[in-house]
């Protein structure tokens, strides 16, 4: 048991270091600014809700974290990435708002105007995302198309389809019952709660079923897994479907934040953040073994970087450049040759200690 704990510790070591690094940079800025209060870590109540940089990171990072969950499974089982998740988020949002408002309606603000109940719209949005995921999974698992190519189809088509569903308009649902998923539940931002529930449910599923072993085994050696009785195609299909489900949930959260289906912008480029989160979490994009906790830490690290940059006054247009530089640094720290170097150094040190 002790050994097991040691191993997980080691796997999480670098993702955690990266996270801490980003925080330290923030603290450093606070010190440079002569900000003795360390605004970065400050959490306060304003207007009855939690307020602070950390809260903001957790809140804004929810979508990436939710996407990273599904992405982790997809990467593990199929050694490929699902690049359609951002577009599928948009599709889910578009579907949801269209169902609630009715086709061709631009804005609803009272119950009387609704074409369908809000819950019904949300369910439809998530269902269409699940369908999209299953479609991706079918192409990868049964048609044996490379994941990147297979998901490229929906990467471009899903967003277009969303626009079509919304009749080329931005559909507003100005109702508190809908806004709540992107705003606050009591003092806590709802997206944080939703992300937490998603994480908890998936973690529980992985803990209490053997799905984790199934997925990793298929990801490591498909042929051996088949001989040992696994149906690799079904498992890959399942992973993509789950990935679709999470993309749907993330899409609803994102739509609810702006209480409108702005299909051109919902989830835009978020697939890249999700994939990076998985990589930052120390997971090999070559598939096989995965570490969910790593991906989640990776997701919030990425959000922390974005938030830091925006808080430092870097414009939204330039932020990606800085983000890229920071991410390169973090990825390089985790690269095998660098890891090897540090391992050797520490081995040499401990050898010296033993000798003494």
């Amino acid at each position, binding site marked *: 048991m002790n050994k097991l704990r040691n191993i997980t510790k080691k796997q999480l070591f670098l993702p955690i270091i990266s996270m801490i690094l980003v925080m330290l940079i923030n603290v450093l800025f606070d010190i440079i600014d002569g900000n003795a209060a360390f605004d970065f870590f400050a959490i306060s109540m304003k207007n009855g809700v939690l307020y602070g940089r950390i809260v903001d990171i957790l809140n804004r990072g929810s979508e990436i974290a939710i996407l990273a969950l599904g992405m982790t499974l997809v990467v593990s089982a199929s050694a490929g990435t699902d690049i359609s998740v951002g577009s599928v988020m948009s599709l889910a949002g578009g579907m949801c708002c269209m169902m609630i408002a009715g086709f061709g309606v631009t804005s609803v603000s009272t119950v009387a105007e609704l074409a369908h109940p809000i819950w019904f719209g949300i369910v439809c949005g998530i269902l269409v995302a699940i369908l999209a995921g299953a479609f991706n999974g079918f192409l990868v698992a049964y048609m044996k198309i490379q994941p990147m190519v297979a998901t490229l189809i929906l990467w471009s088509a899903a967003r277009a389809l969303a626009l079509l569903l919304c009749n080329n308009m931005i559909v507003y649902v100005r109702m508190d019952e809908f806004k709540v998923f992107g705003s606050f539940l009591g003092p806590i931002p709802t997206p944080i709660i939703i992300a937490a529930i998603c994480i908890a449910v998936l973690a529980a599923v992985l803990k209490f079923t*053997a*799905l984790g*072993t*199934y997925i990793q*085994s298929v990801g490591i050696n498909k042929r*051996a897994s*088949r*001989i*040992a009785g696994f149906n690799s195609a079904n498992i890959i299909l399942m992973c993509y479907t789950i990935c679709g489900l999470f993309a749907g949930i993330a899409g609803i959260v994102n739509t609810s934040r702006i209480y409108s289906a702005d299909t051109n912008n919902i989830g835009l480029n978020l697939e890249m953040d999700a994939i990076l989160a998985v990589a930052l979490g120390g997971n090999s994009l070559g598939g096989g073994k995965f570490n969910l906790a790593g991906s989640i830490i990776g997701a919030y690290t990425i959000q922390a970087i974005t938030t830091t940059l925006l808080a430092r006054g870097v414009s939204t247009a330039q932020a990606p450049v800085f983000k890229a530089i920071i991410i390169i640094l973090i990825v390089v720290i985790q690269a095998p040759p660098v890891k090897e170097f540090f391992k050797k150094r520490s081995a040499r040190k401990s050898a010296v200690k033993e000798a003494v």
Partner: protein
Amino acid sequence: MKNNAVLEMKGICMTFPGVKALDNVDFTLKKGEIRALMGENGAGKSTLIKCLTGVNKFEAGEIYIDGIEGSVVNRDTLDAQKKGISTVYQEINLCPNLSVAENLFIGREPLTKLGTVNRRKMNAQAAQLMKDLELDIDVTRDLEEYSLAMQQMIAIARAVDMECKVLILDEPTSSLDDNEVEKLFGMMRRLKEQGVGIIFVTHFLEQVYAVCDGITVLRNGQLVGEYDIEELPRVKLVAAMMGKDFDDLAAIKQEEIKDFSGEPLEIDAKGLSHAGTIKPFDLEIHKGEVVGLTGLLGSGRSELARVIYGADRNQSGTLKVDGKERRIKNPIDAMGLGMGFLPDDRKAEGIVGDLSVRENIILAMQAKLGPMKKIPMHVQNEIADKYIELLQIKTASRETLIKQLSGGNQQKVILARWLATDPDFLILDEPTRGIDVGTKTEIQKLVVQLAQEGKSLIFISSEIEEMLRVCNKMAVLRDGAKVGEISGNMTQESVLSAIAGGDRNE
């Protein structure tokens, strides 16, 4: 350096996490000598070789090579090759989706004036090389189209073709049949005459005495001794390897010839086939019976077994399992009917490398239960420990990744995987390949014991003595078809003549 030595290794030490794989090991090889490197699984043979070729970084010790001043450290295999050390590993390390010629010349392709690869020249040279070695191979076809044995021969051809002083063969014969082994030996003797020193790792004792001049024995990472071949007869060699006296293999030969015709049928196959691999065949296996599949490599032994298990989809005929007609589409269907299958290609179809020994052992059991019924961790641990103990799997712990185990121990883990499912019908395809003598005997005993418990088995092996020891009857295969069965008082001669077929013209 001692005179006429081509290679000298002194005091080599190497540690893996939790295992001292080599402890102060010396090794000397003379010019034009074929030296067997012997030891049980996990003794450190492959590790010693990897230290020599730069794959492993050893902690202490020195290496001297003839013609090179001072002690040598090879950074990697390429570096070693430049210094005249070529290797063929136990597990084939070629690229299956490149052509044979490309594999032969990878990293040293002949170039055109433009600096691109001169394919015509490369293919011609490759074809010539194949001809020299009397191999019937189309060098323009992808490597993966050839059998494991052929791939092995190609790997050897590649090593031989490079100017070398020392040729290392790490269990090259484990997937070759007698004919191919003879070819290999011819090749080795020719090289020996040219003054090349050859290190030969094998588990087949008779091969040692057929070609080798000397023997170096390792046990548990330590040097037991360096001997001339005359000094060390078979029994002493086995004793040196195992650190105990030779447990006579003949002891487990089944005494009486048993008649199974009264027993109920476990497997009753009529006209099963798979296009391109095995023509329609009938096969009956009674409860408690061990049926051997024999024939030359590539005759369809594995393929026949694969169709029954559903590893390859059956395309005709009917299969009755335990009296009921069944359709098997996938291995999991077969497993549901109480079957298990240990495949011959351990690396590609056996191990799940990045999972632990424990996970590898419970894999099939878990697959049978389905994803929703996870085997509780303490049960997993118990099962893993039980089989590590029972099969004497050498591993630092049950959480060690299976890819870190030596080949023979990996094989035992896969065997454990199937034993854990408590199968009624177990197919073992080359279960003892690459396994040391002691364990081989254990596995053979296990097979006999399983049969006595009323289980049925298919046993496939290239070693006829082994087959004779455990099988009640044998099905003979030739060119992808089952051509006959032999039972009763089987002998080496009767099996060989059945394999060779009646229409010989000698």
